[in-house]
């Protein structure tokens, strides 16, 4: 459950990055939520009786390049510009995205789980080019394009559908890097919807459907998971309209979706038909598709200035603040944050359950937001403030209200998932203090528990929520008395 050997480089400028990326073994690393699980999975599969050693990789960390974390409207044409370091979570909760590209906001809310979206980037998911994933389909559906930087300061722009070349393949040449995703302004009165299906709600979909209903111009359907890249068809605009059904069926009949271990081609066709019709009905129904307003999570720290680690290195020294204590471990570049926390910082409250970002047991907070420490490259956390479960109640201090609620409601049995569950629950209640059952379940869906059936966990989060509301009420009463 470790990563393969990697060399690590942390360029300070786009020029340095593109230069480093000319190496065919180099991969651009932003949030790493697609790339690092893929590396871990390939190695894990090889060790579990799979094929042999993997090709060496150089990870080019983009996170210290200034300016890539911008999410803004282009004053010239009203296009939404999403920089390469904008996280999925930031975009999902951005009022700009909700307003200008609700389809993207809806799709992002389905990408993995909060602790994945806190770290994963919109552009990174696009570049990962999974044929079933939400972001590539949304980018194509919205007529997006990417601004690409190349060696020597070269720039080019190309449409998202020409970026995507096939499953996990793009048309980027060595040395090229996506700087931002541009989504043109929606038409006046346009309504959008995203629907997807997977056996578990937040998994990578088997099939996803994006629909844009454009007044006077019919509807545009984009499907994920039915072809090597997202496919688009033009439809009449109303689901009730028999013509729309016929058009959807014609579009679906023209597909020849792949069969693999996750789904057969016929299942994908069926899902495409169902989701397309439902998305069409939804887009036709909802004047303003729901995009959650809610407070933004704590602002991301400004990108730290790049340092001199231009040359790829296999070892480096870090500075980490873990539960308030400063550590300066010397590490191998390939070490994950989970490994460093456990083995070099003594933070044994961090549990590793899968090493590939699937189970959530290793959840910690990084600069105030939950992440899965098994899929964070420790080198990227250099300078960060980490909190593990031990930060909730330092030794000797009384338990945190969530910890108390977990005990009171029997929300744990073996306790292996508990640390991650507590930290996810804390973030959930911070962002949505009135979270109802559905929001609680959705917010914790990325943290697997094998013992409790989630019954006590949901009750405990509810209890902590209600106690916090009561405490707040009490505090207000006290104020009144003053």
């Amino acid at each position: 459950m470790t990563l393969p050997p990697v060399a690590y480089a942390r360029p300070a400028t786009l020029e340095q990055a593109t230069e480093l990326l000319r190496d065919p073994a180099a991969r651009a690393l932003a949030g790493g939520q697609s790339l690092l699980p893929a590396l871990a999975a390939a190695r894990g599969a090889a060790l579990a009786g799979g094929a042999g050693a993997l090709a060496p990789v150089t990870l080019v960390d983009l996170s210290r390049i200034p300016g890539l974390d911008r999410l803004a409207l282009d004053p010239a044409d009203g296009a939404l510009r999403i920089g390469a370091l904008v996280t999925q979570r930031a975009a999902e909760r951005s009022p700009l995205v909700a307003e200008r590209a609700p389809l993207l906001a809806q799709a992002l809310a389905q990408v993995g789980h909060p602790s994945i979206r806190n770290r994963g980037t919109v552009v990174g998911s696009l570049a990962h080019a999974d044929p079933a994933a939400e972001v590539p389909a949304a980018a194509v559906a919205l007529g997006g394009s990417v601004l690409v930087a190349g060696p020597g300061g070269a720039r080019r722009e190309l449409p998202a559908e020409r970026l995507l070349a096939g499953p996990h393949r793009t048309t980027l040449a060595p040395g090229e890097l996506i700087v931002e995703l541009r989504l043109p302004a929606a038409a006046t009165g346009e309504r959008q919807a995203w629907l997807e299906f997977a056996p578990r709600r937040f998994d990578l979909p088997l099939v996803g459907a994006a629909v844009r209903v454009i007044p006077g111009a019919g509807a545009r359907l984009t499907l994920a998971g039915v072809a090597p890249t997202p496919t688009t068809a033009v439809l009449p605009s109303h689901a009730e309209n028999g013509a729309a059904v016929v058009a959807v069926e014609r579009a679906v009949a023209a597909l020849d979706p792949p069969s693999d271990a996750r789904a057969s081609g016929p299942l994908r066709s069926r899902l495409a038909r169902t989701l397309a019709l439902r998305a069409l009905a939804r887009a036709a129904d909802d004047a303003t598709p729901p995009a959650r307003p809610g407070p933004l999570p704590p602002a991301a720290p400004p990108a730290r200035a790049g340092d001199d680690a231009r040359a790829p290195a296999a070892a480096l020294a870090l500075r980490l603040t873990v539960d308030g204590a400063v550590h300066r471990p010397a590490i191998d570049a390939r070490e994950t944050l989970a490994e460093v926390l456990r083995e070099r910082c003594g933070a044994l409250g961090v549990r590793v359950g899968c090493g590939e970002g699937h189970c959530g047991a290793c959840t910690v907070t990084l600069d105030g937001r939950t992440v899965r420490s098994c899929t964070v490259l420790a080198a990227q956390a250099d300078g960060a403030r980490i909190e593990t479960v031990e930060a909730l109640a330092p030794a000797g201090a009384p338990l945190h209200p969530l910890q108390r609620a977990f005990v009171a409601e029997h929300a744990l049995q073996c306790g292996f998932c508990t640390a991650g569950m507590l930290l996810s629950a804390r973030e959930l209640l911070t962002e949505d203090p009135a979270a109802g059952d559905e929001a609680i379940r959705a917010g914790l869906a990325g943290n697997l528990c094998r013992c409790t059936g989630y019954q006590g966990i949901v009750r405990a989060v509810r209890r902590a929520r209600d106690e916090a509301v009561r405490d707040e009420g009490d505090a207000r009463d006290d104020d009144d008395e003053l």
Partner: protein
Amino acid sequence: MSAAAGSAAAPGAPLGARRTRLEDERLVRGLARHVGDLTRPRMLEAVFVRSPHPAARVRGIDAAAARALPGVAAVLTAADLPHAPLLDSVRIDGLRKTPQPALAGDRVRFVGEPVAIVLASRRAVAEDAALLVAVDWEPTPFVLDAEAAAAPGAPLVHDDVAGNLLFAQTKTYGDPDGAFAAADVVIEQPLIGNRYLAAPLEGRGCLAEPAGAGETSGVTVWASTMGPHLLRRRLAQTTGLPEHRIRVVAPDVGGAFGLKIPAAPEEVAVVLAARAVGRPVRWVEGRREQLVAAPHAKDQRIALALAASARGELLAVRAALTGNAGAYSFNSASALIEPYLGAGLLPGPYAIEHVGAEIRSLLSHTSPISPYRGVGWTQPHTARELALDRVARALDLDPVELRRRNLIRGFPHRSATGMHYDSGSYVASLETAAELIAHEDEPPGTGVRRGVGLTAYVEPAGWGSDGALQSEWSFASHDGARLQLDPTGGVLAVVGTPSQGQGHATTLAQVVAHELGVRVEDVAVVADDTSAAPVSTAGTRASRVATVIGGALALAARRLRERLLAVAAAVLETEGSAATAPLTLAAGVVRGGARELTLRELAEAAHFDLAVRGKLAEPDLVVTQLYDPPATYSNGAIAAVVDVDLGTGGVTVRRLAVVEDCGTMLNPLVVEGQAAGAVVQGLGGALLEDVAYDAAGRPAGDSLGSYLLPCATDVPELAMAHHESPSPRTVNGVKGMGESGAIAAPAAIACAVADALAEEGFAVERLPLTPERVLRGLGAIA
């Protein structure tokens, strides 16, 4: 809701109190320590080299490149680590033996079987090195499922097991043929049960450190295990060390559910390797390693038939139960746990007098089948309950009414297969479940079908040797417990059954506190160390700890209590003040009229006051107690409401209700937690979880991205209720529980899906009920 019928527990008493767990503060603070958290000086990390082939000959292993990697201490193969193979340990006539090596020698039999162990200073280096070991494989023909394994000319998994047939037996109870001939209705219900697995969040693992030297040479092993004594026994058998030189410690264990009962071949290899290199060696199982190479579970192919009269009496059940045993019959019992145990419970909670079972267990080139919650019972139960619903449909009877007519009402009841059901609330539990699930609910949307499934179950619980024998299973299952009052007045309860999340530190303390008359907090349960605990022959399994170990501790506490009262009398006598009233011990204080003696005072006197000690017949506050209870059976009912989306094939479980009757409850909070966990594991088995070997012989479900465990969004809120029918046979009427959801929730959900789609002509014949299977069954996709 509670319908207590003469519980041993009085209001306010520790036994039966709904109280939070003593272990939890430590766990929520992140202070647990698992095998992967432990280190020893000079420790090496172990990583295994595993077979990529389901069947192959090993022509050679070249580890030169791996050994040359800096940080690698050793690469060891079977040739370097001589040992006796692991063997299954159930004595049943006709069961063929399949010795399993810790490391495969010249032949591998499933993908993931280990052939070498790599030791290095760091795990990453050991993994790098493992990938550099070059094995010269000669792939050979393989067979993956039981039917194919039985076919003439199928490749043999073990050369000396002809036809891959590990075991075959026909069992007949009563006259099933006659009953079927006389029946008005006969329903055939085939079921291909999925292969799934426990998948606890913490994988397997161990740390072995050589101990002693020369004539005292031995080993200390910290292992993520459910049975430290069981592991010690296997290690003794394989390494040749005597058991008193092997110390097995179970630190915190992150879930187990049956998986950690057998000794892992890897554990044996780690111990052998540690002794070979003379350094501590730690192995922490990776998730993919677990999903691919750890034992799997279930995987029965069933052809069941149910015979009924026109009046809705169930007359007979007959089933051919074929277990896919995998490549080896696992060591702490055998692969028969699936079809053989399944046969014994075919009548379940119903008065079915005629039973026929054809049991077969076949080897295949897949990971071995070992226990997982509800061993053996889950899939036959599902098949029988699906058949019951179809009988109801054929007779136009309400499925609940059909069950009500056939549930056992009088106790004790001897089942057709020889189980002595001691007491229960079979009908009442069914009715309570039906009430819980009846609910005003918004109607399903367009293109969505709703269905209800309700199943009654009986759970052979609290396994002692008698319980095992009633399942025709010869397996010594007795336990000793040691209880001692320490000089400061605290109570130490030492047992051989560690907790993997079940809460023994609380529930067993409640038993002791109740019987002894002390506070729950004054009892420390120690269950982690073979060098401290009396031998537990079976370990933490088969819902047995509350009954067997709880019983042993209760009996020990009663004896210790007598001794404490004797100490109190001696103290008073020494003081020259006789008690003015009979001595009582409650809440840690002995009262005899005006005089009060705390436990601490008593303990101090009993240990150090020579005058008091001189008056004691038994001047010893340590009691050891063996208990091997008679068989006992828990019961209950589970109901589910599902929505099936015809557009996607997706099944949503809207409601679940569980009614549990496990006799006297030690702690309802813990009972409900266990019930809920088991139900959701059952939900996973019904809808999501499938190892699904591909054509190349590799599990498709090889990561937690492809092997789908239920998430919070897959599970509704459970409605839960209790009945309490104490066992007349066991200490305090305790029966044991924890598996019912794993046994019966798949049936409730499968029945609900069948109900939802009955008009569409859909029949459940294979699990899990994936969108693919649902839509195919409906004819919606080709």
